[in-house]
Every structure is written in C-alpha cells, then in structure tokens.
C-alpha cells in the first residue's frame, strides 16, 4: 500500500478525492490517501510546489496559469492528470440588487444568461463589484466571458474566498458573485443574496477542477500517478450515479471534510437549487458532472481555451500561450492510467469546444462514449486548430 498526501479545499467538488479515500476506491488501487484540507488555493498550490502533498484538487486554470508564468506561485511545473468535475458553480447577487432586478420584471430564468446580464447591468451600481474565489479560476473566466464587452469598464472583479462570500455580500463589499457549491446555497441560507444563473448556462461543459500534480513527480512516479487517476475516476463514476447523492452528501458533511449540513450539500449534488430566501427553486440538469460524457478526460483543447483567455488578459502571445497551456492537461497520462480498466477513453486528445448543442457519440476505444452537450451561451466555438 503506498501512501499519498492529497490536498483539497473544502468544496462540493472535492468529492472525487474524498470519496476515493472514504469508499475504498483508492484502497482498490493499492493507495492509502492522506487527505490534507487547505484554507486557500494559493496554499494548495504551494503545498504541491514544495512537496507537502503529492497531488491536489485544484482549480483548472491554476496549473495553466503556472505554465504561462502568471500568478504568485513558485516556478514549478504543474500538470493535470484528470478533470475531477465539470461545472457546479452559481452566479448570484445581493438582496438589494435582486430586488431591483425583480422590479425590472426579470423572472430569474436560469436558462437566460443574456436576459440576466441585461437585467443586472441595468440596475447595478457603477462599477459592479463582483466577487470570485481566485484570480485564476473558471469562475473568473465564466463571468468575464459572460459579461464580455459590456463588463469591461462597468465591472470590478474582486477576490473573495468561498467561505467568506456570504459575509462579503451581507456586508455590502460586493454586489454579485460567482462561486462553487455549497457556498452559493449558503449565501441563500444566510438570506444575503439570490442566485441568478448556474455556471452551466454560460458554458455547459466548463472544466472546473482537476487532479493536479507536479509534472516531475508524475513523470517519476507513473505507477502511483496512474493509480491515483484511476481511483479518482472510479470515485467520480460512483458520484455520477444519482443514487449516490444521499450517501455522498452525508460523507462530505463530516467535520473533517466540509463540516456543513448534508441537506445544503445535497442541493448542488442533485441540481435542485433553492435560489432565494423566498424559497424559489430551480432544477438544473447536469449542474455538476463528475463522470458522464468523458467528464474526467483532460482535453488539451480545454486547457487551450483557458490559456487563450489568460493570455488575452495578460497581453501574452496567443500561439505560444495556447501551446504551453495544452501541454498542461495530460491526456497521455489519463490514457495510460485507463489501460486495461475497461473504462472508455476518447480517440482524440483535442476537440472543438462549444460545437454541439446535443449529446453526440465520439470515436473511442470501445465505441460507446458520448459527449455531453457542449455549448457557450453565445454559441461561439473554440477551435484549437485555428488561431
């Protein structure tokens, strides 16, 4: 049995790593996982960089930002061996903002990101103060992509750690936020805000968290690396079964993990969100995907999309940045890990992002893989072969 230290930030989407340790998926792969919670993403990144942990639950853009030499991390190369989850985030606004949006006749339609944007920008103070958990996060990318040109000078994006989001909105430090569950539901529970959109309405297949490791560690410890990827993916498959939601919520609610009521965690897991303190509900299909549609496969094109956004903001060369970014998502490691497991893997390593409104079959090793609907709210596509 080899012992691996794995870092995580207490969030719903740390589930694949926690479930791998708690439900025996790691043990089946000959691993004993020593899970280490961290209070911040920068801490997880540093713990990885100097070897305090071997792998970690990580925001998908963090290893990409490292590869582009952006951000405050040490100069250590990080790689993503698998995607742990797709989506699972919500956008919300403060109570006063929600009230003003209601007054304009906005119906809080979770499938209308353009209507929500117009209603928000029409009533929002200038600038609109919007909280996201980290400068290098899918939350940041999704809100800037959603607000687009309209947001460029009308919005001030601030970093607010997830656990402090409810306080920041209650104390009028921010007007709106994008955060991962369960922290959006906790804002609603504290009657501080109302949810206006799920992250899925902006990009239906946004890679949210990855299994990150030091590139040199992954290269030198291929056995442990592959075992950990397999354990995470098998845990993700278990999580992908709707019948697992109740038990998963119970396990995650334990004090050593999220230390929050199982009922609140269940909302994100089931996609049944309570969006306001008035008790309004929205059902979101595939609110968070742990497994369905090759969710765990680290597509090079996903990393390239992230790299392209980061490069555009930082003024880096697009072609160079996209090449560097693509090398971070290790579809080769993933394939290597799945060898002989019977789990299907796509034949390609890159795809056109945003190209399918419906689920589509995809060429794969066993020919029984389908991709989930993959669409941006504005129907644009991202083709990794075109610059």
């Amino acid at each position, binding site marked *: 049995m080899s012992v691996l230290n794995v870092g995580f930030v207490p969030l719903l989407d740390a589930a694949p790593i926690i479930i791998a340790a708690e439900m025996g998926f790691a043990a089946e792969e000959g691993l004993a996982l020593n899970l280490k919670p961290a209070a*911040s993403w920068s*801490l997880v990144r540093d713990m990885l960089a100097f070897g305090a942990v071997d792998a970690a639950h990580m925001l998908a853009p963090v290893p990409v930002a490292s590869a582009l030499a952006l951000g405050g991390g040490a100069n250590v190369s990080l790689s993503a061996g698998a995607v742990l989850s797709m989506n699972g985030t919500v956008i919300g606004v403060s109570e006063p903002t929600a009230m003003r949006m209601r007054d304009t006749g906005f119906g809080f339609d979770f499938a209308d990101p353009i209507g929500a944007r117009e209603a928000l920008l029409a009533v929002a103070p200038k600038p609109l103060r919007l909280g996201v958990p980290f400068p290098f996060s899918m939350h940041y990318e999704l809100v800037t992509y959603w607000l687009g040109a309209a947001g460029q000078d009308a919005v001030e994006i601030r970093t*607010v750690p997830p656990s402090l989001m409810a306080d920041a909105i209650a104390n009028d430090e921010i007007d709106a936020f994008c955060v991962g569950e369960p922290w959006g539901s906790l804002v609603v529970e504290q009657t501080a805000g109302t949810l206006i959109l799920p992250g899925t309405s902006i990009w239906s297949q946004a890679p949210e968290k990855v299994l990150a490791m030091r590139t040199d560690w992954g290269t030198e410890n291929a056995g442990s690396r592959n075992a950990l990827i397999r354990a995470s993916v098998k845990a993700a498959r278990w999580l992908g079964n709707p019948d697992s939601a109740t038990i998963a919520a119970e396990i995650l609610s334990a004090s050593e993990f999220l230390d929050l009521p199982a009922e609140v965690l269940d909302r994100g897991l089931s996609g049944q969100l309570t969006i306001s303190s008035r008790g309004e509900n929205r059902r979101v299909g595939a609110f968070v995907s742990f497994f369905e549609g090759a969710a765990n496969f680290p597509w090079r094109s996903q990393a390239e999309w992230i790299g392209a956004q980061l490069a555009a903001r930082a003024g880096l060369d697009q072609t160079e940045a996209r090449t560097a970014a693509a090398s971070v998502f290790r579809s080769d490691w993933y394939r290597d890990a799945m060898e002989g497991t019977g789990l299907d893997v796509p034949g390609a390593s890159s795809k056109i992002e945003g190209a399918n409104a419906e689920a589509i079959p995809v060429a794969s090793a066993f020919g029984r893989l389908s991709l989930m609907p993959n669409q941006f709210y504005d129907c644009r596509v991202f083709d990794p072969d075109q610059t």
Partner: protein
Amino acid sequence: MDKNLSIVVVEPDQDRAREIAEGLTVIGYRDILVIGDTAKLSSRVVAAQADVVLIDVANPSRDILEELAVVSDPLNRPVALFVDEDKEGLAKAAIESGISAYVVNGLSADRLRPVLDTAIARFNMVGRMRTELTQAKRALEERKVIDRAKGLLMKARGIDEEAAYALLRRTAMDQGRKVVDVAQALVTAADLLS
C-alpha cells in the same frame, strides 16, 4: 543584517498580531503594519509598500493577496514562497508551523530568514498558550461534570463519594469510554428525566 524591511502582518487575532509585531520590533524591525480585517486587503498591502506579508496559513484571505501577483510585472512578481532557492526548507518549515509568507519584492532568503524565524517562534508561542488555556478549561469543565455525576449516583444509590467515582470508572472501563463521557451521559439522562 538589513532591518529596513516593510512588513505587513495580516492577523485578525489581536494577541497573536501583537506578539508577532513585538517579536519583530525586538530584533530591530521598525516598519511593521498589522492588518486585522481583510477588507480591501490587496490595496492596503500595496499602499503599505510591503516587502513581506505574513499571514496565517489557515486564513482563507491569503487568496486575496494573489491579486498582487496579477497586476505586477511577471519578472518581478511576488511569490508566496520561494521554492526554487529555498535550500534550507524555510518555506516548508513556515507553512508547517502555520505561517505563510508572501514576498513582494523578490526578497532573498537571507533577508527573509530572521523575519520568518521570529514570526514562527512567536506564532507557536501564542499557539502553545492557547492550547494550555483550552486544556485547563476543559479539565475544569470535565471536573464539574464528574462531580455532578458523582452527586447523582450518591443520592440515587445511597453510596459515598469514593464508591460513586469507582462505579463511574468501572463503567467507563467496561464500555471502553472515558470517565467524563460516562459522567456526561448520566448527567444528560438525569436532566432529561427530571
């Protein structure tokens, strides 16, 4: 040793903040700013022209400091900890002891070392004092519960104090539990039944 560093200590706990600031003053640092609440943290750190920011690793606001790294020149970007040149394991020692340092101006390890050493020592000292205090409080609480349980047994069974304690201890041993847990169960049950 150069003592002209601008040091920001981000610490909501006033006792701990005072200890760290005092410790740094004692060894000769003069330019120390303590920030207790984290509103507008990054702009305040910039305004203080900090060379080093010290922050508890358990503080989620650490992520706010990442904003500093986004706006600055990539060649001179602040790093949380310099792993590359950290031969003595300074970074690891700091994080394991509960402090994380955010180095703003490409500061060398030599210049940071005394700051971190002092901060770590003071941080740990406050931690120890806290632990002692909680231990003492807990011992006191436990004593109260055991005393109440003894009283209940003495009254219900007409036995003396020594016999009541022996009974509690024997039950605890039989059930593989702590004396205080058995006492607590008894007190809770008695409260419910009364």
